[in-house]
């Protein structure tokens, strides 16, 4: 039976991605790694994304608080605003929104950069120079996204909560100490740890998809654009799929 074109394309792409991931795992355990390049990528990927993540995190916390207040007021539980916002940000909104912003900035950047290197033969030149381009370009970037996204999420959560604190004070008065006391009083390890663990998977997905699309880029400059675009779309979709799976797992483990 002949598979429909789209399904066969999907299966071929999935198989190709699986091989790419298995090559990543193999290269990851090679004794000779490009640690200097990894540190550089952590800076480029992590530190240079901080401003964008920080601004979006701040707005997210502020807007969420302003949107939630009328609903809570109607039920007479306005005092629970810090608790509600804290839980929403730390458990779900912080990790997912940070990952989506990160995917938009980093996954497309990696896809375009590696795609451009591919079509201008720079990856071949690395191979000829005796440097393993997969380890130099892919392993360092995927590791950097995996390590940096949880750190950025923690920072984003903190800035979001500060935004929320300002939001609470627009139509009321709460001290910073009291606000954070209320937030942390209700937060438990089962709120924080699963959220942090899933950001590791988000980071890995963003890095590996960006690298996969860029590394396999074809058809000249048009292909570079398509790689960058596909990297954002697929990694964003994967963030939601991973989120769905982790929620199911934490539910099964009784952590929700």
């Amino acid at each position, binding site marked *: 039976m002949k598979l429909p074109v789209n399904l066969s394309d999907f299966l071929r792409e999935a198989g190709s991605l699986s091989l790419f991931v298995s090559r990543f795992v193999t290269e990851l355990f090679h004794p000779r790694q490009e640690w200097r390049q990894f540190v550089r990528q952590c800076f480029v990927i992590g530190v240079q994304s901080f401003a964008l993540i920080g601004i979006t995190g701040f707005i997210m916390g502020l807007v969420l608080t302003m949107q939630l207040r009328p609903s809570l007021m109607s039920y007479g539980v306005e005092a629970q605003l810090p608790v509600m916002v804290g839980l929403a940000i730390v458990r779900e909104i912080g990790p997912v929104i940070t990952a989506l912003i990160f995917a938009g900035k980093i996954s497309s950047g990696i896809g375009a950069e590696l795609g451009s*290197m591919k079509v*201008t*033969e*720079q990856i*071949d*030149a690395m191979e*000829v*120079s*005796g*440097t393993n381009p997969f380890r130099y370009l892919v392993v360092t970037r995927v590791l950097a996204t995996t390590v940096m996204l949880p750190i950025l999420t923690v920072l984003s959560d903190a800035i979001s909560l500060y935004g929320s604190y300002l939001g609470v004070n627009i139509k009321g008065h709460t001290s910073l100490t009291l606000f954070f006391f209320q937030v942390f009083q209700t937060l438990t390890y089962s709120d924080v740890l699963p959220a942090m663990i899933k950001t590791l998977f988000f980071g890995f997905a963003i890095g590996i998809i960006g690298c996969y699309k860029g590394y396999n880029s074809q058809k000249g400059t048009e292909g570079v654009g398509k790689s960058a675009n596909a990297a954002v779309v697929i990694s964003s979709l994967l963030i939601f799929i991973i989120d769905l799976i982790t929620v199911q797992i934490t539910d099964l483990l009784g952590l929700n």
Partner: protein
Amino acid sequence: MDNNTSHIPTDPVIRISHLHKQFGSRVVLNDFSLDLRRGESMVVLGRSGSGKSVLIKCLIGLYMPDGGSITILGKDTSQLDHEGLDVMRAHVGFLFQSNALYDSMTVRENLEFPMRHHLKNISKEEANKRVMEALTNVGLAHTVDMMPSELSGGMQKRVALARTLILNPEIMLYDEPTTGLDPVTGKEISTLMTEIQRIYNTSSIIISHDMKCVERTADRIAVLIDGNCYALGTFDELQQSNDQNIKQFFE
């Protein structure tokens, strides 16, 4: 270039025997055989899409042949593992058609890049000396701290050439070195290639369809048609051929 090749020793540095390469059902190289003698400059001439670049990428190990064998400096490349291939590549310089300079690195970093793997224990002073020597030999010592994007096409080609020379290769492979350059710059690059051959005492395979470049650089020419070596001879010999397939290149 002097077409009298009697001064060239016959010791082959590259021996290509019955090479076969295909992509899917499309046969690109079919029973292609060729010897490159030590000190010789061999041009592989062919039309666009005839498989010239595939041939040169098979030589450097970027493509694996489907049949036949390639022997470089006495070693059969099909028998080499990854490490062996790396060692072989240290003796072979490869100039890419697109130059393939690393956009995110300065000219100095581009030139230092091959040394990080092949010359790990080299001192900073020695590395700097090699970089400046290679750049001086292509007339671009002043660009050492510039980015590739700040250089013209011809200058990028020269820097790419300097990068291939940094490990003092015995063999040079040029993939369409004058494509995309204006005639004056193309002539400069062709002259530079012959200069490099003399200074570094290299043997070269040049992929080209630029007849001006071919005339300036070739000791011998191999004409690639239908995936195999259709004709082999000096520029003058082939120019005088009555074969229409060969004549078309010289008209």
